[in-house]
């Protein structure tokens, strides 16, 4: 699993899905780092991004915006985005907003 603090640009993740821990920082402007890391993995050839929500209680508007940025980048690169361990309330929110149309949910 790759958390923001552990991410290294030189990590060899050949064709492995990159797992990104959403955590709490997703809901702040500093969460843009998630987007940058995802773009880096996509540039390295990764074609599956797994965003792990196991430590994310709620997702606010900034969080949604950042996730849409990840989705947009992945879509441009022909990659798949998986949201894992999303809690029920957040799933409901993502469905209402139409975010789930662009990702695969996985528990």
């Amino acid at each position, binding site marked *: 699993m790759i958390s923001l603090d552990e991410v290294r640009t030189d990590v060899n993740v050949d064709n492995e899905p990159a797992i990104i821990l959403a955590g709490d920082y997703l809901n702040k402007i500093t969460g843009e780092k998630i987007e940058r890391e995802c773009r880096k993995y996509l540039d390295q050839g990764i074609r599956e991004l797994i965003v792990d929500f196991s430590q994310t209680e709620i997702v606010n*508007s900034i969080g949604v*915006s950042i996730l849409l940025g990840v*989705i*947009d980048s992945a879509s441009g690169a022909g990659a798949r985005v998986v949201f894992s361990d999303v809690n029920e309330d957040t799933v409901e929110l993502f469905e209402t*907003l139409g975010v789930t149309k662009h990702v695969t949910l996985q528990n």
Partner: protein
Amino acid sequence: MFENKHALIHTFGALADLGQAVTDKNNFQETIKTSLHLISGALAIMRGGVARYSRYAHELNMVAARGLGDDFPLSLTLCFEDERQFLANGLYPIEVREAKALPFFQVYDPSLESTKIELFVPLVIQSEIVGALLLGEKASGLPYSSYDKEIICAMARHIGVAISQRNLLAEIARQSEENRQLYESLRHTYRDTVQAFAAAIDCKDKYTEGHSVRVGKYSEIIATELGWSDEEIEGAAVAGYLHDVGKLTVERKIINAPYRIDAKESAELNKHPAVGFEILTPIHHPYADVPLAAKYHHERLDGRGYPDGLHDSEIPYIAKIVTLADSFDAMTTDRPYKRRRPANEVFEDLQGNSGKQFAPELVTAFFKGILKELAGESKDKKFRKLLGREYMESEGLARVVQSGVNNLAPTSGLTAIAAK
């Protein structure tokens, strides 16, 4: 319409966060970027941008963008018709596909089309265009509902106010800078005028040519050594430049007398401090003490000066500075009836008269100023320029000045008695 409470809370949370974000006046760029995140995230809008309008250039300049790509123009020009229509429209979102008649949407159609921009929101605050929002398709793929547009409208108002406030602050900063430059220019003009005036005063006395300017410069040195602010130092210099302005009314033959003047002539000459005060008082100087320096620059700490025979603490501080500068210049320049005195003798005289004629702390400050220059610690060599190289290289001068610094009392005896 939102289908569940989570979505409703999500949207109102975004509105609340936006209200807080726009109050941050420290980082405008960050505020606008956060605002774009909040509006995009509130309604799950895939891409968009916020532009700030320059009414001078008639351009919308992108401040923040998400998902618009590198090819999207950073500046979008509005023509008069666009401005007119956007002003009339106000903050309400415009459907791009329904507004193609406007020149703006015709010119930028390829960029708007390729980035799937669906809504254009002119940010109109107090009948002025301050910017615009460009919003792409929603993640749901559904068209924007009227409820969505109301939310966008509310959020756009917040962003518009933030930009408007920024513009206002920028305008205040611009005007403040303009005022500062104007003030600087006025100060320069004032100082140039004062220096010209000082030169005019000195012209009357062919033997003391440059006296007022030198007294101004010595006063400046003393004020600098006292650690005064730049403005206070300038005030001291001006007081020095103008201290003898009253001499303009004294007959030239008295001023230029190549002999020691008699009692009658002396009485005439001694009127110049009071006359100087009268001349300078009606002028609105940036420095309040300038007229006082003219009036009291012949007073002594021991009360034996003129015109009022004031004692130490009764004499304005600025006058004490000018007194020292004036006397030093008188002793170090040739007069019609007297050659200038040797440097060592002058500094010994200053030390000897410290506490009687001169304020000791000012003599100390003055000595320290010249010591720095003798030790090569000051770059501008003010004393050398005023006194000449040969004079400054008088044998034993540094020793005499250093001895003076060591022996001078911190305050005058008279002050000490007054304090008791």
